[in-house]
């Protein structure tokens, strides 16, 4: 890192359901690494990505896979507090913020577009 580290606005945009593919877990690992570098991290959930935060997941019991949903609850301890979920994506799936394991700010698609536009770096998976 340079000695005069500049803080950039990073967004991790989660668009995949949690257990059918490896994307969601890989993005979470990237977020944890990014947290080490004191950047301005935004974690967003849209499309099937909102399913990553669904309460009551039991990947360990049902599939003998890692229950990484619990790790989202650790983000607060990593000083990652800017979490957003897209309103339309939740509604299409019959979900509300109350169905999610961590508090998120629910924003509509237009607001999500504006937020994406304001970032320095966007990683979407």
């Amino acid at each position, binding site marked *: 890192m340079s000695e005069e580290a500049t803080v950039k606005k990073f967004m991790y945009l989660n668009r995949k359901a949690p257990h059918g593919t490896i994307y969601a877990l890989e993005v979470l690992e990237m977020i944890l*690494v990014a*947290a080490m570098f004191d950047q301005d991290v935004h974690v967003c959930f849209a499309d099937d990505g909102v399913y990553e935060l669904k309460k009551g997941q039991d990947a360990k019991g049902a599939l003998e896979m890692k229950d990484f949903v*619990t*790790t989202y609850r*650790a983000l607060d*301890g*990593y000083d990652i507090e800017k979490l957003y979920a897209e309103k339309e994506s939740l509604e299409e799936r019959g979900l509300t913020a109350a169905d999610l394991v961590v508090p998120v700010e629910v924003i509509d698609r237009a607001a999500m577009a504006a937020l994406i536009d304001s970032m320095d770096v966007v990683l979407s998976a």
Partner: protein
Amino acid sequence: MSYDVNGKTIDHDEEGYLTDLALWNEDLAAIIAEKEGVNMTPEHWEVVNFLREYYQEYQIAPAIRVLTKALTKRMGADKGSNKYLYELFPYGPAKQACKIAGLPKPTGCV
């Protein structure tokens, strides 16, 4: 590659981290500690047990910054400092304490 605990062999990776966290027990922890040159005191166990609780709850080993913050909250600023942790685990709290606690190597670790 494995540890030998009371006649049972328990596998570890090339760096000494357990491959199956469920096989951890205190006897094994003592054996790993000995290999690391760490003499386990109640203060060491306090950190190791804290790491195991953290892992149970969040399914990850905490980064050092997160560990010190959480320890400060739980046990006070004396025990939540880098200095204190490095005194207990001279080769790095993440590297040594996590290994002794049977956790995987932390993401972005020291």
